[in-house]
């Protein structure tokens, strides 16, 4: 290809490679960071093509697409905020300048006002019980639904799990605490005016009032987050996530840029031996022929070994044990419910294994004479 085209391609591919690597550090979304790394390597593959190293380029693409994909998958699975939305919201609320990761600071200390997990019924939030089939049935204590006889389950008077940031004040109806909305209005059930919900801890921030950047604003941001989750373990997790943008990041960037500069200077100043040799036309073909003719037996052997390993693993694999055979003849007088001691929400009417952890299910006695077996309601 012509020299100019080659230069253009080289410069654009290099720009993509470096730019994507930089954006990997600067973005707050872990998913995007993984993709940026992938894109950077793909640009490198493009550079390999420019060097006529097609096979290397293809291998580069294959390895990195697969590898980065798995990395991204695990990040999405394990991390609290893989999309960076939480961080982005916080940054926006605090109106911090500058590109994403560079402007964040690690929050110091635990934000105040975080209640321990498990605090459910308080005077402000009476615990109401309802029937899963007839939601119009509500009462203050557990029991059975008068319509169908099913056990009542508690309604959690909590924010839905997805709302990280309590933006505006939450309004609720004094008669119906399960009714909540983000602005004032009237209760759809009884028509009473809604009142703001009293938060535990510092008052919720005004939507656009806060301009301060100190701990005050940080706490509000975190306060909203803290409303959704409440355990110290979660807090540690969140801090680990925010490590995407640590105080050390500018140092990392400076060091990286410095080393890159040193390498470039070395490259320009040092006399690298330039070879005029052009790779042979059919170099790959020659290598392929060699491999296929002389070393085919090696491939066959490797394939055979892998096959033997897989077959052996499959044949000797531990089969899932069938559930214990049902007792013959008469059914039990009481309806037995089997639960897993680690996961009480898993309930079965016959013995077996817990699908989550594999432990054997243990029986729990049910009240005799109940017409419906107890359902998986409260955890």
């Amino acid at each position, binding site marked *: 290809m012509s020299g100019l085209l080659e230069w253009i391609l080289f410069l654009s591919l290099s720009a993509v490679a470096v730019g994507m690597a930089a954006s990997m550090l600067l973005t707050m979304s872990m998913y995007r960071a993984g993709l940026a790394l992938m894109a950077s390597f793909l640009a490198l593959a493009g550079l390999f093509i420019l060097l006529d190293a097609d096979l290397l380029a293809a291998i580069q693409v294959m390895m990195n697409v697969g590898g980065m994909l798995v990395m991204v998958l695990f990040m999405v699975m394990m991390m609290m905020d893989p999309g960076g939305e939480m961080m982005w919201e916080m940054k926006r609320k605090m109106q911090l300048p500058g590109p994403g990761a560079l402007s964040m600071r690690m929050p110091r200390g635990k934000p105040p006002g975080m209640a321990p997990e498990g605090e459910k019924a308080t005077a402000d939030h009476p615990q109401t019980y309802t029937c899963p089939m007839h939601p119009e049935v509500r009462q203050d204590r557990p029991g059975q639904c008068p319509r169908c006889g099913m056990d009542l389950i508690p309604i*959690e008077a909590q924010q839905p799990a997805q709302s990280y940031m309590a933006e505006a004040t939450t309004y609720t109806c004094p008669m119906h605490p399960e009714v909540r909305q983000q602005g004032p*209005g009237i209760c759809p*059930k009884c028509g009473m005016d809604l009142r703001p919900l009293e938060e535990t801890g510092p008052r919720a921030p005004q939507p656009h009032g806060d301009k301060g950047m100190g701990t005050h604003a940080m706490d509000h941001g975190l306060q909203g987050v803290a409303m959704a989750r409440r355990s110290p373990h979660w807090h540690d997790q969140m801090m680990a996530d925010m490590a995407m943008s640590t105080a050390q990041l500018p140092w990392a960037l400076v060091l990286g840029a410095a080393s890159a500069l040193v390498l470039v200077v070395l490259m320009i100043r040092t006399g690298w031996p330039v070879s005029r040799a052009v790779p042979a036309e059919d170099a790959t073909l020659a290598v392929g022929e060699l491999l296929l003719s002389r070393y085919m037996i090696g491939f066959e052997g490797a394939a055979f070994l892998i096959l033997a390993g897989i077959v052996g693993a499959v044949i000797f694999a531990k089969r899932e044990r069938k559930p214990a055979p049902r007792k013959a003849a008469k059914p039990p007088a009481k309806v037995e419910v089997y639960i897993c001691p680690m996961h009480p929400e898993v309930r079965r009417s016959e013995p077996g294994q817990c699908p989550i952890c594999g432990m054997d299910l243990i029986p729990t006695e049910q009240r005799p004479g109940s017409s419906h077996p107890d359902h998986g309601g409260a955890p």
Partner: protein
Amino acid sequence: MIGKTEASGPGRVDGWLTRLAGYKRRYLAVDGGGGGRLLAGLSTMSGGLRRVFSPRHAELLLIFEPVSHKLAPSIVELYQAMPQPRRALGVGEPGPDRFPHADLVRLEDLLPGLERISDSPGGPRQIEQRMRTLPLRPDQVSSKPEFVETTIPVPGKQEREIATEPVVLSLGPIQSLTAGPLRLLLTCDGEQVVSAQTEAGYAARNVAYAMTQACGPEVARLASLLDPLAPIAGRIAYVQALEQLQRQEPDLVFRQQREAALALERAQNHVRWLIGFAELLADDRLTVAARQLDAPLVDASTAFWEPSPTEWIVPQGSPVLVRSGRHKDSLARLATEICALRSRLERNRVLALRTAGIGVLSVHLLRAAGVSGPTLYASERGRGDVLGRLLTRLDEAAADLRQVAASASTFRSVEGREAVWSAPSGKAEVTVAGPRGQIGLSLASHGEGPGQVTWRRPSTALLSLIPELLAGQKLADAEVIVASLDLAMAEADG
């Protein structure tokens, strides 16, 4: 629910593009409770319509009445999520007109430019026609009914090494697994369902109360609306209850004819269910086979009686002219085809991958929950898994059709008396074998009309089984299991 939009650019309404685009319309169906039959009929029409399952892919929103207040926010949300240009089509009489005692909404108040079409004559063909010619246009939704928030208990977070969190998936209330709206709240650990919860009540029409407020033949009409998919069963239940109160025993011939009507309805229901189930499994051959059974069955059933069962299922009977002889051969033939299909399915190993050993219900659990009908028979006769329920329903359908064909030769016109709609005081208890199980009716009358009406509905019992049944299943299996229960939410919610 799918999040709200931030769109760019309204839809264009150019001439030739519109004409070309109208050749194939994509619609999203919302079944408020009464649409199962018509939906199945629509799916057999090939060509101009395609059913989609995400509002973003749809141009038309097809809503089957009645729509309760509880369902309204979901419908508005779906409509808002649809891209412009769009249109909504309501099928059936407006809910508040038909059920004045229920908490229903008028669709015209909810959605702008809603077009209404009635749900009887012409059936699916007419609906399809209207859907293909309805002009689409950009519009804005003004009313925004508030959601009633539900919070469900999520399994407590445990301090594990790997801090993953379970996802709460809310399937519905508009989903294709049941005939009618039902919300399934599945707490999933990846693809595995940890716990399940149902939220019903979206199709509640308060039929029992409405029956106490009406009198005469109107009550029978309401009874037939309890389960729109099984109108004959409801009607027969009420009529038999009245006859019990009146201390009249109808003639043997009438009883046989009523049984035949019930059996035909049951068979129709099973085949309709099979269509939906095959579509869920995405098994094209089964879908095609089911559709090929459905159309002739519907035709034969409608033409079997003259006049239609709604006219002659009345207390103490009336002159009945029956044309059954002509169609009993086709019914017998259909029964044979169903049996052939059943044996093919039993041998189909790939179908067994998705259905065998999945969702096993034990007999004593079913009996304890008060379940009856094909679900119970499946557990009694065999595996009690999804495949067993599928095969049992086919068996039942074939048996019902054979029974009707056999007894059809004994039918004849009978002179009857005028229908007597009085309800002398007393109590009556009736059980009718419906498509999903035994439908029970308890009627207490003070002489004026039904004073207290209580229905025992088979779908309610099945609903109560769902949380236990789904816990520990894989997500894709959970959907198949719920579909295999053949729930009719209109019946379940009453």
